[in-house]
């Protein structure tokens, strides 16, 4: 290492020592999923810049082999000019995954280097699963989803306590002294073991807990995913008992979150609706979903009219089928995920298009916005393909043991094109209204604005069509409105530094189709902006975070769920900041200026930074500024719906 690099690293250590928290101390990849700042988190940060160099060298090596030096240089140029943002470059691993748990049932952890054999009981299942999550997370840069957690746990509970265990929850299983241990106690102990274990910082991940996602299913999705499924002992999944277990977990988890800010698992409820009646098919689970929100629980809802929208491990696929739901921060189906995410900086791209194509007085053969996007997307497909080649080489050498063991298949995961700076690009076009093509003139960020719809279609549908056109047996692309915890801030700063227009009322780029800080947008309008007219152009995930000042009633939440069907808003959650007392530790599900238990005004707030729940004091400084600007709608306003 040369003197200059060493000096830079020593300076980083000095800066890290005085940083307000771990996320702020990070120069490369600030992440609020690190609660404690210590020597382990600092050490993990220290080598990240080296890994970025290695990561880029790997991509360039495979690009050179397949496409030649020109494409390598274009890749370097796109990165240098911040046309693209390559996520988690400080890792050379695949990005995120929703695994099948079946290999774990067959062979335990041995294929991943662990020592445990196949689980035989609920206890060994949960204990082994926690270890499995840490092992899998050690081979991925991002999230690990285990959508089968509860259906599988139900199987082991039926093995241990009888097929009808849910009918005997409060009957004693054994006595310890004067204490009677019931099935409910045992189940809640298993929940506790799972949740507190996965929230432990992981040494191998720079003290980040494994980003863990789980799923809940209604009857429609349960039947779709577990059709013809059987466990190794021949037992079949049981909807009636799994339904009760899902409810028990949600109730328990919601209550547990009044004791501690528990970040993981991030939960997704999956509900199917009827395309003719536009009603949720499983009304009981739909009502329960609204009930849990009304009780203050925080989780995502995925809804769709297609039973095949969630991937299953065993349903047959072909090369031209529609993409299944896959979101880098959520869980739906099994055996899906992203191998790599490269995000397009839409604000800069739109301004470059305007400056290079629209605003050049004597230019011939001007490119339309879709043509301009096509050129860039085609390049990014090559960059992603290079990474895919790298992963296949790793797989063929036996280094991707999660894949080798059959938890996931490289062909089932996506190569993801993210996008960020989307509304900022639209806001820029509005500022040059008189000089742009007529289809984008008079653009307003509103659900029924034809210019905004045309803008969304011309960018996103273009990418979607190219994703399909470039699809092969080994290449499957999708597009995601990425949460951009870091990228949103970095791209904003770089664009501002380089003289591009950026909004003055924001310190980072938005991750939605609406301005998150603007109080004139009510929750329903935002739901339509995050609905089918806009996300219909996507073949990957996006999330609507409905920020509310206070909780709604069950009926109000249920009404919003119905509106979501009408709007075509397929993935959303409600965020009401929780108040965390720094003095007595009490957590309220409401946003208060003092602790409701001890009266102290020394309070912090917990909310979702992007997709996961954290105390705001754990956010990076840039994200804390953004959090302070978020607009939380009040109940009266929500009553409009």
């Amino acid at each position, binding site marked *: 290492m040369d003197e200059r690099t060493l000096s830079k690293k020593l300076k980083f250590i000095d800066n890290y020592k005085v940083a307000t928290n771990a996320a702020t101390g990070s120069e490369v990849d600030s992440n609020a999923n690190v609660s404690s700042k210590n020597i382990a988190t600092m050490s993990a940060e220290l080598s990240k810049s080296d890994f970025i160099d290695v990561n880029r060298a790997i991509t360039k090596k495979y690009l050179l082999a397949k496409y030649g030096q020109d494409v390598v240089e274009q890749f370097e140029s796109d990165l240098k000019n911040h046309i693209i943002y390559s996520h988690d470059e400080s890792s050379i691993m695949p990005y995120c995954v929703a695994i099948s748990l079946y290999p774990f049932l067959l062979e335990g952890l041995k294929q991943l280097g662990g020592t445990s054999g196949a689980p035989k009981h609920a206890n060994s299942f949960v204990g082994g699963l926690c270890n499995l999550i840490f092992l899998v997370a050690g081979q991925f840069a991002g999230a690990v989803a285990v959508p089968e957690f509860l259906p599988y746990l139900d199987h082991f509970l039926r093995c241990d306590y009888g097929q009808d265990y849910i009918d005997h929850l409060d009957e004693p299983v054994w006595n310890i002294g004067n204490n009677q241990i019931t099935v409910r106690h045992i189940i809640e102990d298993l929940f506790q073991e799972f949740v507190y274990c996965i929230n432990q910082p992981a040494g191998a991940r720079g003290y980040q807990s494994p980003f863990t996602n789980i799923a809940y299913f209604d009857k429609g999705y349960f039947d779709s995913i577990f059709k013809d499924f*059987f466990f190794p002992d*021949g037992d*079949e999944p049981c909807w009636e008992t799994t339904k009760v277990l899902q409810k028990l977990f949600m109730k328990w988890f919601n209550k547990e979150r009044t004791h501690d800010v528990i970040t993981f698992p991030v939960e997704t409820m999956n509900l199917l609706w009827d395309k003719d009646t536009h009603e949720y098919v499983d009304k009981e689970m739909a009502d329960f979903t609204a009930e849990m929100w009304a009780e203050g629980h925080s989780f995502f809802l995925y809804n769709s009219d297609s039973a095949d929208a969630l991937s299953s491990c065993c349903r047959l696929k072909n090369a031209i089928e529609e993409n299944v739901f896959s979101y880098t921060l959520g869980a739906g189906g099994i055996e899906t995920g992203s191998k790599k995410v490269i995000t397009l900086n839409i604000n800069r791209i739109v301004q470059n298009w305007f400056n290079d194509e629209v605003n050049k007085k004597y230019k011939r053969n001007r490119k339309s916005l879709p043509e301009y996007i096509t050129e860039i997307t085609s390049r990014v497909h090559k960059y992603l393909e290079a990474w895919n080649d790298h992963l296949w080489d790793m797989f063929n050498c036996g280094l991707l043991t999660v894949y080798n063991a*059959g938890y996931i*298949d490289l062909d089932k995961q996506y190569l993801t094109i993210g996008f960020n700076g989307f509304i900022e690009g639209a806001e820029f076009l509005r500022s040059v209204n008189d000089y742009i093509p007529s289809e984008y003139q008079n653009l307003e960020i509103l659900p029924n604005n034809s210019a905004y719809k045309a803008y969304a279609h011309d960018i996103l549908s273009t990418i979607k069509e190219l994703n399909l056109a470039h699809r092969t047996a080994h290449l499957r692309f999708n597009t995601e409105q990425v949460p951009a915890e870091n990228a949103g801030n970095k791209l904003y700063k770089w664009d501002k530094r380089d003289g591009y227009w950026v909004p003055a009322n924001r310190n980072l780029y938005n991750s939605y189709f609406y301005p998150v800080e603007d109080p004139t947008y009510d929750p329903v309008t935002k739901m339509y902006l995050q609905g089918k007219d806009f996300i219909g152009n996507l073949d990957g995930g996006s999330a609507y975070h409905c920020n509310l000042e206070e909780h709604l009633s069950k009926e109000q939440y249920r009404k919003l769920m119905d509106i979501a069907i009408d709007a075509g808003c397929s993935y959303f959650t409600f965020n009401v900041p929780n108040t965390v007392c720094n003095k007595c530790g009490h957590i309220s599900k409401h946003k208060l200026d003092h602790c409701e238990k001890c009266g102290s005004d020394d309070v912090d707030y917990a909310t979702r930074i992007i997709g996961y729940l954290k105390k705001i004091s754990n956010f990076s400084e840039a994200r804390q500024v953004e959090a302070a600007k978020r607009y939380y709608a009040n109940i009266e306003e929500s009553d409009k719906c």
Partner: protein
Amino acid sequence: MVKLYSQPSCGQCKMVHMLLDQKGIEYSECQDVDEMRSLGITHTPTLEVDEKLLVGKDIINWIRSK
């Protein structure tokens, strides 16, 4: 005549393999999606036994009966 229709990363398919091998049952295997679709197969594993297609628990029951 036994034929197993499977997919590369299907855990249940792997288990059916193991059970067939344990019982010493001879079988052929097909991973051709087009062929499976032409037979109306939508999920794996599917086991063809004497021109009858078995799915789910029926596969386990048949192997255990051998």
